[in-house]
């Protein structure tokens, strides 16, 4: 059979962001895939040359719209470690609350997009409708809807009142009930299973070898999560990573579905154990030295390498995002699939291209 090369992306109905895959196909079967990136590179890391280390908090937030809070938290943790700043306890818990809310809305967004990828429009709208409640919580508590700007080096900039905590709790109850009502549709429906079970399989050995991260890794049966590092207030919360053994698109979907409910539970735990105290400490001096910090983003491990030189500007701010780690596993998943399954599998790693290219 003669081979044909088909371009998939950078503009494709299923892709929210531009990634180009050069697919070699034999009839309808994919035999090889070659990814090409570089459509949304913005050079945000280089801005550390002209913006000081405090201004960089707002800049790294713009690396990714969906998990802005988590980027800023990771960056602030790095600078705080470099400067030897101890963040107040209340700030640590508040960071967990907002970062887990970001995980909830990111996973709900993905569950919707995934449903859309295999043509289940009704489920797509349903998940996005639920997500709006979480976005409203973000907007009401932080002042902004998407890029929340609550972090600063040394703590957080906003507080949650007792009334707000009660309101969040009530809203999350509704969100949880609505998400639970969709469990059977998301994971047990005949059509959903037909499109996702056994499609795009990544074994746990392959996942480890290729350095997969986040739900892609946990969907292959490896229970590894950066929240096990006990950063922020995770040392005082009950947390066990969720994993599914099959390594197919369905497993990755199941991991994200369960993580949505787990994150809601983590927000509740953090709200119940929220200590009284200061929101931030005053930071004096200028960052000097090198530091590597890691946190768990909705898509997997996020790593920041920061190098300070004793001035207000950093020497280097290197960001490694989970999608970057998940592209080699994606290239392994695609060969052998039918062309119609490619959108589902590409979406199953939850690609965030603007993160990857920065």
């Amino acid at each position, binding site marked *: 059979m003669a081979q044909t090369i088909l371009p998939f992306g950078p503009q494709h109905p299923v892709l929210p962001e531009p990634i180009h895959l050069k697919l070699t196909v034999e009839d309808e079967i994919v035999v090889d895939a070659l990814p090409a990136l570089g459509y949304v590179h913005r050079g945000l890391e280089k801005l550390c040359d002209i913006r000081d280390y405090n201004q960089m908090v707002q800049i790294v937030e713009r690396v990714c719209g969906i998990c802005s809070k988590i980027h800023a938290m990771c960056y602030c943790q790095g600078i705080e470690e470099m400067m030897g700043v101890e963040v107040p306890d209340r700030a640590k818990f508040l960071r967990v609350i907002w970062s887990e809310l970001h995980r909830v809305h990111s996973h709900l967004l993905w569950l919707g997009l995934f449903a859309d990828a295999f043509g289940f429009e009704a489920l797509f709208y*349903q998940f996005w409708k639920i997500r709006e409640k979480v976005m*409203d919580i973000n*907007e009401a508590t932080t002042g902004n809807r998407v890029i929340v700007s609550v972090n600063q080096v040394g703590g957080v*900039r906003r507080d949650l009142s007792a009334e707000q905590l009660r309101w969040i709790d009530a809203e999350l109850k509704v969100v949880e009930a609505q998400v639970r009502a969709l469990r*059977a549709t998301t994971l047990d*429906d005949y059509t959903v299973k037909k499109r996702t079970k056994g499609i795009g399989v990544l074994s746990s050995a392959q996942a480890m070898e290729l350095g997969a991260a986040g739900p892609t890794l946990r969907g292959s049966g490896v229970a590894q999560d950066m929240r096990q590092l006990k950063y922020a207030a995770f040392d005082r919360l009950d947390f066990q990573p969720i994993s599914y053994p099959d390594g197919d698109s369905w497993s990755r979907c199941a991991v994200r579905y369960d993580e949505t409910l787990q994150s809601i539970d983590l927000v509740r735990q953090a709200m119940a154990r929220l200590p009284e105290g200061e929101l931030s400490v005053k930071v004096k001096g200028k960052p000097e030295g090198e530091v590597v910090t890691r946190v768990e983003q909705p898509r997997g491990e996020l790593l920041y390498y920061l190098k300070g030189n004793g001035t207000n500007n950093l020497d280097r701010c290197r960001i490694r995002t989970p999608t970057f780690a998940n592209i080699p596993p994606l290239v392994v998943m695609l060969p052998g699939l039918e062309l119609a399954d490619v959108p589902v599998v590409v979406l199953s790693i939850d690609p965030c291209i603007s993160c990857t290219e920065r």
Partner: protein
Amino acid sequence: MRLGPMVPTVVKNLISKKSTRPYPFVVREPFPDQRGELYCDIEQCIFCGTCARKCPSQCITVDKEQGLWICDPFACVYCGTCEEVCPTHCLHHKGAWRPVAGERQMIEMKGTPPKKKKKDAAKDAAAE
């Protein structure tokens, strides 16, 4: 025929009220403390320029000589940094966002520039 698990949700959606509102005829009230359009209470401004220096998107220009405070709302990222660093607390975010604009317009505010210190005024006079 077996009904799919989505059917109860679909029926519920059909009989429940709408999830969306007919914008722009019905507009939701902004949440309290929402970071909307930036506003400068120019009478209190001392034109120190701290907001312009600290702004991560460099959207504010302050002219001390002429008593001008200018903000580019298209570059502003609504982070609230300027509001926090302002020594006289003259900067505020309004609750509502700026309406959609067809032209790029700056938020310009003119106030009374601070009086020069005697020493500086004498230096200027000598230069002239």
